[in-house]
């Protein structure tokens, strides 16, 4: 017979084990990547260009490519996402239109990333070749911007909605117009959340492979123009692994990628704390 007390303790242990499992998974992955990656990691690996089909030299072209591609993605997605969020939160009433916009964003979020890649391939590489330069850093960035658009919109909307009604009323009561209130009260108040959302989606974009696999080159290319091709960390990792070029170097790239993404995540937190320190408490 199991008494209520034993059952209670058993349950507690089970729950604790599930919680612990998360930490375990995290540490096994991180630890393994660290161990494997550390072997090839040195200044040359980070700061020089690859030679001999990536077997020698470094991955600077891929690091630069990734940074450029995610910057392009955010540059395009942020204004649109934030604009849509301001519209949803401040300029319209809940109804058919807002339902459709939200449904669109959710659906966009649900599309498998390889489909974005396929879509980007047709749109940017084939149809808009004259404007994007075909398989270019710009095409890759634009494709990723579609992917992070819903996240930026959602996180922005959430943080816009946390701006207290009291403050907005205060602004209106002083004779401010809607636009002035949005510019002076709503956006500054929502900025920490908006920034956090952007930085987190930067991290997400940096980690995507499938959407940009058709747009990045296999051979090392020093980025010279956004209308030209380039490398990215993820697709290079994929190439090195699938072609069996160098597993160790692939882990080196993985480690670099993890460090970049973690840095982004922590700086998101830091930026958020920094920006909110003077606000509502």
């Amino acid at each position: 017979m199991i008494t209520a007390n034993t059952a209670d303790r058993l349950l507690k242990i089970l729950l604790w084990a599930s919680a612990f499992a998360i930490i375990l998974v995290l540490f096994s992955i991180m630890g393994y990547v660290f161990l494997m990656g550390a072997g090839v990691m040195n200044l040359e690996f980070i700061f020089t260009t690859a030679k001999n089909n990536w077997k020698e030299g470094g991955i600077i072209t891929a690091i630069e490519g990734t940074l450029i591609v995610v910057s392009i993605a955010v540059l395009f997605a942020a204004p649109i996402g934030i604009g849509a969020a301001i519209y949803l939160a401040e300029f319209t009433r809940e109804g058919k239109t807002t339902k459709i916009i939200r449904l669109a964003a959710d659906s966009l979020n649900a599309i498998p990333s390889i489909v974005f890649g396929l879509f980007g391939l047709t749109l940017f590489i084939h149809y808009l070749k004259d404007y994007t330069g075909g398989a270019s850093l710009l095409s890759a960035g634009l494709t990723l911007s579609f992917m992070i658009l819903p996240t930026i919109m959602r996180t922005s909307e959430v943080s816009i909605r946390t701006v207290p009604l009291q403050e907005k009323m205060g602004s209106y009561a002083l004779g401010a117009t809607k636009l002035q209130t949005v510019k002076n009260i709503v956006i500054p108040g929502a900025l920490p959340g908006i920034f956090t959302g952007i930085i987190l989606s930067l991290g997400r974009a940096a980690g995507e492979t499938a959407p940009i696999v058709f747009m990045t080159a296999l051979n090392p290319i020093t980025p010279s123009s956004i209308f030209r091709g380039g490398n990215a960390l993820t697709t290079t990792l994929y190439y090195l692994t699938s072609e069996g070029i160098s597993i160790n170097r692939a882990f080196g790239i993985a480690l670099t990628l993890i460090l970049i993404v973690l840095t982004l995540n922590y700086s998101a937190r830091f930026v958020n704390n920094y920006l909110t320190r003077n606000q509502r408490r």
Partner: protein
Amino acid sequence: MSMEKIIVRELNLWYGEKQALEDVNMQIRENRVTALIGPSGCGKSTFIRCLNRMNDRIEGVRITGKVEIDGKNIYDKDVDVVALRKRIGMLFQKPNPFPMSIYDNVAYGPRIHGTGDKKKLREIVEDGIRGAALWDEVSDRLETNALDLSGGQQQRLCIARTLAVKPEIILFDEPCSALDPIATGKIEELIHDLKREYTIVIVTHNMQQAARVSDYTGYFLLGEMIEFGKTKKLFENPHKKETEDYITGRFG
């Protein structure tokens, strides 16, 4: 004798299907303090928000009747609501300073209304803060965050912010309900001083407060104005049974 600043005629308001104000008529005199009292949910806030068209911002609100300020119905089609709110300041139950410096809070109104000149702005800000009896407490820290002030100081800062826009009328919706008695006393004193230059309407739950600060009092019950008159008379010798019940119920 002072003039009527605001004349309310046959004012009705519905939130969707629900009627919240019914045939309200009232005359609010210039340079006087008019208090609105009544039990919770009787429509005091709803009414006071009609005076600066703040209800426009709430979904599903329908209004009939007139609110004439200086003889002009503010619900006429040609009225510029933004310009109207500049003439009619409003203070809220909970102090709501913006999360910025004390200076920027008070400069907010003048800035959005186009005062660019730094020297002029500084004067307006100082006048506003002095007008709200806050200068001595904050003059040496205008650049610090307004949220670091105490509740009572925050409410006076909100008053300063309102004064900086140079309104003609100031509406107070339970401005002291979040404050302690000392801070409340300061605000009441301030209201008393402000009526020399402004027409004041104040909603309050506190009948002693109404008796202390106001010249006229209106008693609201279930969206209707039951009785309106000189404060002293309404408290000492109410006409209507409902008014008497309310007043004595609270006091007695």
